[in-house]
């Protein structure tokens, strides 16, 4: 009884948040005084610049200017970080990167680290994106069926998307280590001897691929699911009337109509996959050896972490990676424009 009484006395949540807003409201009132003067002085255009200024200033200082001076960095040498202390070397960084006797063999290059990580990244991107789209597509198809508790199942696949890459990396390091869950399952089912998976080159690569798929597939499945649900139901009803086989329905109706979403998923997946770092770095640290060293980690280590740091080389490498991303982004924009046109028709 007394509990109920106390409940009535306590502030409801809305009243409480209203109370917290009082100082904010006061500040906004005070700010209004000089702003009114500014508005009288400069009119609506002045107010537009006022509203734009903070965001654009931050954006300019921390995105736009670095983006531009990155090109300058890539043409300087030395290990100093401030531009003023660096010297101009022209295109030497790029020449070093492309100085290879054979592009297929990283060890024949002057900058073998770059080519090793570039090759690793290319292999990773191809395998990871292919498998992930396959898994995402199956998941979306399964979730699009009339199943009991659909929102629960959707949540199951989406859950890892929000986890931090560090947490993802640690969870899986813990599972793949010698006394881990994977070895327990293999031991119980098949009597396998425990094995340190992350110290094996091929297993570490497979782990990086598998773990990033685990962490991201829910996101991509969600986009595909939205696409599947946008396909008109009457198409399927008509196909059922005609007694069309399900595999035929899939290849003749579902897949063609899902193509726009599949392209979006493909390009977004590629863009994110090219930049792979966090999960793989926490999981394997780039090892064993350099078998899971990817481009972003190479840039990070060249730029900051290693004793023989070379910011100019790191900048040149980052521009090359950026060029790949720009191409992918343009492909995506072209694809989405084509989708819109198709939608209008």
């Amino acid at each position, binding site marked *: 009884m007394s509990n109920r009484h106390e409940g009535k006395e306590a502030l409801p949540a809305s009243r409480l948040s209203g109370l917290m807003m009082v100082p904010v409201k006061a500040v906004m009132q005070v700010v209004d005084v000089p702003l009114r003067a500014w508005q009288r002085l400069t009119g609506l255009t002045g107010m537009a610049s006022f509203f734009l200024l903070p965001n654009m200033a931050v954006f300019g200082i921390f995105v*736009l200017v670095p983006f531009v001076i990155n090109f300058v960095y890539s043409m300087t040498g030395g290990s100093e970080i401030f531009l003023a202390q660096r010297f101009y070397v022209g295109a030497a960084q790029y020449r070093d990167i492309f100085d290879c006797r054979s592009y297929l063999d990283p060890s024949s290059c002057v900058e073998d680290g770059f080519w090793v990580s570039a090759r690793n990244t290319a292999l990773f991107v191809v395998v990871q994106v292919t498998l992930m789209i396959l898994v995402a597509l199956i998941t979306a198809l399964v979730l699009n069926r009339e199943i009991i508790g659909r929102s629960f199942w959707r949540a199951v696949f989406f859950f890892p998307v929000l986890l931090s890459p560090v947490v993802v990396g640690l969870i899986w390091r813990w599972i793949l280590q010698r006394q881990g869950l994977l070895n327990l399952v293999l031991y119980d089912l098949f009597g396998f001897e425990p094995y340190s998976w992350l110290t094996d080159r091929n297993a570490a690569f497979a782990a990086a691929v598998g773990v990033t798929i685990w962490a991201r597939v829910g996101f991509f499945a969600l986009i595909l699911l939205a696409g599947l649900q946008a396909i008109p139901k009457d198409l399927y009803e008509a196909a059922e009337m005609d007694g069309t086989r399900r595999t035929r329905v899939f290849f003749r109706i579902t897949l063609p109509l899902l193509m726009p979403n599949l392209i979006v998923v493909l390009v977004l997946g590629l863009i994110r996959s090219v930049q792979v770092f966090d999960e793989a770095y*926490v999981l394997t640290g780039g090892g064993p050896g350099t078998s899971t060293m990817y481009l972003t980690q190479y*840039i*990070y280590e060249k730029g900051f972490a290693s004793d023989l740091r070379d910011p100019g080389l*790191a900048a040149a490498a980052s521009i090359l*990676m950026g060029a790949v991303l720009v191409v992918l982004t343009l492909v995506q924009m072209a694809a989405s424009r084509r989708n819109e046109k198709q939608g209008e028709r």
Partner: protein
Amino acid sequence: MGNVLAFLTRRRGGDRWHWTDVVTWVWLIGGLLVMFGPAVWLVLSSFKTPAALAEFPPTLMPYVIEEVSVAGYDHPLPLYEVRQADGRTVVLAEVRRIGIIAQMVDPKAPGAIVKVNIADRAPVEKVSFATSNYTEPFVHFDFLRFLWNSVFVTVMATAVTLLINSMAAFALAKYKFRGQSLILIVIVGTLMVPLGVIMVPLYSMISALGLFNSLWGVIWPTVATPTGVFLLRQYMLTIPDELIDAARMDKASEWQIYWRIVLPLAAPALAVLAIFSVVWRWNDFLWPLIVLSQSQLYTLQVGLNVYAGQLNVQWHYILAMTVVTMIPVVLVFVFLQRFITRGIATSGLK
């Protein structure tokens, strides 16, 4: 038997089970195990003692050996079930172990010491949660410090993001001025400039501004999100201009229009951006790793990585800290999942 099977698999509408139904349920159940299993395993492991963590094969639940106080011994002694020569088993407490022979006593009659081959005994175990894994990192590591740094970065970055993004979005949605479309193109064009590409010059920029080894050095580069501006602008375009004109008639200043009319009406879009911003900033790793080099400034993600990268990893602490790091995101997931999934499905935001 055939009838039973037919009964169990009978479905509405009289359809038979298609092979795709089997695939569906195999995929769902398998997905449940693969997606949730690792997280559940993490949580269960985080309650184990270091000794239990080093065992193979590991147990599912956290077990410890049961102990008992025996008269004449200072410390509680571990209990074992001992199989005797005549086939009976008795419960004895171990005093010490020399090679493969354990010296044991009967807790009820602690006088005589019995020598037992260690192959003939099995520990008496009980489920016990080692909550000290959770309490000790607060003392041994700067865990509370990391937690505070993460909360500070997340809250500040989200607040600044909401403020400056919504102001810019308001200007882009409700004013006409020269260069408007240029700004929009720049914003959309840089949606895809990832940190990995501008890492080196951004680092020098941060250093030049004296923000190296400062939490604000982590916050500033992340707040002017093009995604946020774009999302809010698209939403504010749907607010009718008549509302704003009416407010101008009533002598409201532009700032008041932004603050008292547009912001409250854009609340749903602001909420989506806030949720995403919290998750992004809480999970950020690479940039804090570059900017923060002093351990009292580490965020949770960086701190976790550093402690997990040590030669002698103290997994019992790491696992517990990982669980704590997961909690805010899991809460967001449980309570706000609908908003997030809708946001992704409609705008491809991530």
